[in-house]
């Protein structure tokens, strides 16, 4: 049924992604691909992987953006995956009922047995969460690792999405964003977590934590004076030691 669930439990499982911490290593994307290539929506086809014009299905993609200009600019790595929206048009536009939002936890899934591969849901998603699998002829998307998070055969510590358990920087958090006392909800409240493209009115569940304001640098790097020679105790003002000096002086 592609109408949205009427008796939702209020549970909104989702991710909180910390853009301040993400180092852009793509480990979450690779781990996601690895798990899901054998998971609920398996396989994630790689068409011509070693040829010209390869085409692969991934549920998680890491973009890198530059914000601002010149010395004040900063690089922000930006993981992008399904936001498991509260008002997902990808679900309501589906003509067959293959696309659905789960009543119990809000996860948005595709039933591969009834999907006709019309691709309209991918047109309806502003976030690019859905990728079509040409080999299977059906649409695929992030399942929030539904086959991990509810899997009682796994140790409890492993019952989180693959991307979350893999992140070496701890930039990804998983939990119930419908419960305002959950760790993820508190994190969002503390750090002013936000939703992407609120103007679309899809009410995404996932939240992004903004990069923290950078510590102010009084002296721009280019103004450092060259190291003085023979000045025994003079503070090193360039190169590695200057960096150490700057970091320790914070």
């Amino acid at each position, binding site marked *: 049924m592609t109408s949205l669930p009427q008796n939702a439990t209020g549970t909104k499982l989702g991710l909180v992604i910390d853009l301040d911490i993400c180092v852009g290593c793509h480990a979450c994307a690779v781990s996601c691909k690895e798990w899901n290539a054998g998971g609920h929506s398996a396989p994630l086809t790689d068409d011509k992987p070693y040829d010209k014009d390869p085409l692969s299905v991934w549920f998680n993609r890491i973009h890198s953006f530059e914000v601002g200009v010149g010395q004040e600019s900063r690089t922000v790595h930006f993981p992008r995956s399904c936001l498991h929206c509260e008002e997902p048009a990808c679900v309501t536009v589906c003509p067959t009922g293959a696309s659905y939002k789960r009543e119990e936890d809000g996860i948005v899934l595709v039933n591969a047995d009834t999907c006709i591969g019309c691709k309209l849901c991918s047109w309806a998603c502003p976030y690019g969460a859905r990728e079509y699998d040409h080999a299977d002829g*059906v*649409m695929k998307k992030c399942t929030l690792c539904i086959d991990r998070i509810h899997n009682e055969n796994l140790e409890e510590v492993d019952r989180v999405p693959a991307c979350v358990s893999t992140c070496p920087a701890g930039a990804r958090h998983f939990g119930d964003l419908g419960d305002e006392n959950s760790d993820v909800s508190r994190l969002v409240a503390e750090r002013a977590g936000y939703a992407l493209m609120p103007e679309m009115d899809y009410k995404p569940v996932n939240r992004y934590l903004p990069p923290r304001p950078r510590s102010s640098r009084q002296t721009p790097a280019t103004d450092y004076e060259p190291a003085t020679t023979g000045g025994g105790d003079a503070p090193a003002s360039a190169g590695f030691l200057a960096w150490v000096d700057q970091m320790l002086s914070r």
Partner: protein
Amino acid sequence: MHPAYSVIFFTTASGAGYGALSLLGINALFGHLPTDRWLGFAAMAVALGLITGGLLSSTFHLGHPERAWRAVSQWRSSWLSREGLLSLITFVPAGLFGIGWVFFGQTSGVWAWFGGAAAVLALLTVYSTGMIYVSLKPIPNWNNRWVTPIYLVFSLATGATWLYALLRLFGLNPYPLAVFAAIFGALAWAAKLGYWRFIDGAPATSTTATATGLGNDHAGEEGRVRLLEAPHLEENYLQREMGFQVARKHGSKLRRIALVSGGIALLLLLGSGASDGVIGLLAAVVAAGLTGVAVLVERWLFFAEAKHAVTLYYGAERI
């Protein structure tokens, strides 16, 4: 958006077919339809042929065409489902109307009511086609009030033009139909011009800043967000399907081609009515051909010029 030929052909052919069907049905209701069976056969074959051909072509882009029957189930929420359902229901009165005309040589009484029902359902189907596009918020070029009326007017204009050419081939010259086609054609192109002006001048719905939550659209260069590194080197499904770009200069050239051929078709239509002979017939046929070309170009542009929000993550700055 990637302009898929199957969908362009579908919306053009089915649009014209539904337009022709609704004109036939409405004229039957008002008792203006000739009872000639062969004419009935040709007219219904053209209308239903265009509709069916278009519908079939739209299934070519499906990953699982054999499951297409499932698409009529979600009419409560999905315009695509409503379109599918309405297109199937339309065949019932349209078929009965055709049977009356072709087998019994009757276009009045109960047969006319079948025609009227088919006309209403045909227009509702075209309305749903338009609404499929309107319901897609990530594509501001489609998510606006212009789209559905334009689909309806083009449907009636192309249907009338092609129907008029067909009637001329049967030696008839229903001049009011030519005038109707010309008026609706003029309306359609005027609306299209308004639509092009609207999409060219519309303020940005979303930007890289709103898509990422980074930067600030009101802080000039300092708040600017730009893509530094894409997640992958080769295009993925999202870019192939949603990232199609048409150069602005080609876009404006194609707009002119559509307008000029559509405009010449209007003049030919009006002129053709004046001559009952071969010249009038030729003018009507050429007008039908030119209208087809113009609408195909217009439809191609409808897709090719539409920008999708996901492109904001791949380098586009605004949609």
